[in-house]
């Protein structure tokens, strides 16, 4: 790429000759193409491995595709959606998704915000503390799931015994096998795993608030609570909004912890839509039906996102 003609005999004299000289047309073409050459590999990969399967997946939703049935593959129209509308498991999964997403996001946000506020003050050893409290974020999600499943396991984990000791449980049982409580297992694991994400994002926003604003407010006579309400919150609001919204979408699709910890059980009490799709595809190898559910999920998520966008526009126009 050095753009030197090998045969223009490189000279040692400080008088340079200009080496190869592309014609004007060639240069224009190269100039026009260069940006696309830089981004082409990434784009080609994204299109073939994400966009094509996405379109294919949408088409599966209207076809009978079962991996173990060699005669499948035909067009079935809206059959899958008719089945889906009768599928009680699907409706339960939908309710579970709301439950799972709502509590996970709420708890991650509240504890993440508190952590960010705690870390915003300088104190001795802050760097080490920060590295330690953010560590769960680095733990692979499958391992986080297994780790918490073991903690909830009365054989090797302390949690059931502690819950029993403080009187929350009548017997030191595994909450993951209790239909009433099972969902709290993955939620707690998710909160543990997701607090750092919120804390890091909010901490960055907190540290971007100009310090002299607080000084000015103090001189004007504002106490700590007033400073938090009149300065911190308004400055954090955009970050909070965008983080919570994106995280909501992400968590509602996040099936790893559930698949690892409960696999949807007991009695489908922890099955969310994403894990239901995976189970249909992975266990029953019914790709058509799985794709139909996925399409419904996609439509729901798009609707949610559109609502958010509209809401945002409305809030902005009010200002």
């Amino acid at each position, binding site marked *: 790429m*050095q753009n*030197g003609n090998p045969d223009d005999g*490189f000279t*040692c004299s*400080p008088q*340079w000759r*200009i*080496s190869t000289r592309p014609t*004007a047309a060639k*240069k224009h073409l190269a100039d026009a193409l260069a940006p696309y050459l830089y981004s082409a590999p990434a784009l080609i990969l994204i299109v073939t491995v994400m966009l094509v399967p996405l379109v294919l997946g949408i088409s599966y939703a209207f076809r009978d595709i079962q991996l173990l049935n060699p005669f499948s593959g035909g067009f079935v129209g809206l059959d899958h959606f008719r089945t889906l509308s009768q599928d009680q498991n699907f409706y339960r999964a939908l309710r579970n998704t709301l439950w799972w997403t709502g509590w996970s996001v709420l708890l991650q946000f509240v504890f993440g915000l508190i952590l960010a506020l705690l870390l915003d003050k300088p104190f001795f050893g802050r760097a080490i503390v920060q590295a330690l409290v953010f560590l769960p974020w680095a733990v692979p999600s499958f391992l986080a799931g297994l780790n918490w499943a073991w903690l909830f396991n009365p054989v090797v984990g302390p949690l059931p015994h502690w819950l029993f000791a403080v009187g929350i449980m009548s017997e030191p049982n595994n909450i993951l096998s209790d239909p009433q409580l099972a969902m709290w297992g993955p939620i707690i694991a998710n909160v543990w795993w997701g607090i750092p994400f919120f804390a890091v994002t909010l901490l960055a926003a907190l540290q971007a608030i100009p310090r002299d604003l607080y000084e000015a407010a103090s001189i004007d006579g504002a106490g700590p609570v007033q400073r938090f309400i009149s300065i911190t919150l308004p400055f954090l609001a955009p970050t909070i909004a965008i983080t919570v919204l994106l995280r909501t979408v992400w968590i509602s699709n996040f099936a790893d912890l559930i698949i690892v910890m409960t696999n949807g059980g007991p009695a489908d009490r922890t099955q969310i839509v994403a894990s239901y799709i995976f189970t249909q595809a992975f266990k029953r190898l019914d790709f058509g039906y799985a794709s139909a559910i996925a399409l419904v999920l996609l439509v729901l998520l798009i609707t949610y996102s559109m609502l958010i966008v509209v809401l945002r526009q409305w809030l902005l126009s009010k200002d």
Partner: protein
Amino acid sequence: MASIDIAAIHKSYGIHPVLHGIDLAIKDGEFVVLVGPSGCGKSTLLRMIAGLEAVTDGEIRIDGKRVNDLAPKDRDIAMVFQSYALYPHMSVAKNMSYSLRLRKTAKETIASVVARAANKLGLDPLMERRPKALSGGQRQRVAMGRAIVREPKAFLFDEPLSNLDARLREQMRAEIKKLHKDLGATSIYVTHDQIEAMTLADRIVAMHGGIIQQVGSPLDLYDNPANLFVAGFIGSPGMNFFEGRYMLVDGKPVFAPTGGVELALEAPANLSDGSRATLGIRPEHVVLGAEGPETQMAAIDLVEPTGFGIILHLTLGPVSLNAFTLDRRFLNATGTVAVRLPANHLHFFDESGRKV
């Protein structure tokens, strides 16, 4: 070294035009300064010569050869950037030798050329440092060193001194001038600072709104500004302007500022009776404390000592006027003072702003 010819250059970004037909011939070895307020297109023109911006229309020739479609690297020019653009991950020596290494110049040649340039710029003790460890002035020197090691056809300077503090700027300005004397290289220098333009240039190109307003030697532009823009831009404190009407009263030339008292003129101007015009005079040409028939009384509003001289803010009827004097008696002046506007220093501009 080479001449640079710019013919009918146009530049637009989309539908937004920036340069409207620039023509300029730069002689071999000349030091040309492009000066103008920000957004006048001077930097764009420089970057087009460098090959960093595409030419929309027109032709640029370096040493007689059309370069419109050549990449920057094939134009054999060097450039000093406002930000210096030193490579942060390379030492000073590596920064200076980068262009030679790209051209696969022999090691011994590089070493001697770089050493000579470093010596010339007083960089010898800094050669192994990274740019981060240098002061602003030193970085500036390295940027110059990087340009001179190549002995290019032309040097381009894009506001190279504007990141320095005032004192250092003066010092570097002198160094650039000395360097140009030594090397005699064709140089194009962009600045918005008219003092830099005046002190450095063989020829100044004053630009405004994507159009060349005037090309000439520094004193040419100072003494004989072609239009209102150049008259106002060159010189500090700036020229005084009065809008009004040129008239002949009883055959005697008079200038009537809008809403003000008529000023009797010592000599007629090249304007028709009753035409709208602007009258300009530089503050240092206003004669203070004079006596005679053309004298008028002006009220003193403010006295600004600059140390070197004194700037007086005056009111002449409804119009305000600045005067510059070296006479320290005016330091404590109050009330009114007699002023005279000598005819040989008056500039008249017609309605379109052109000098008459």
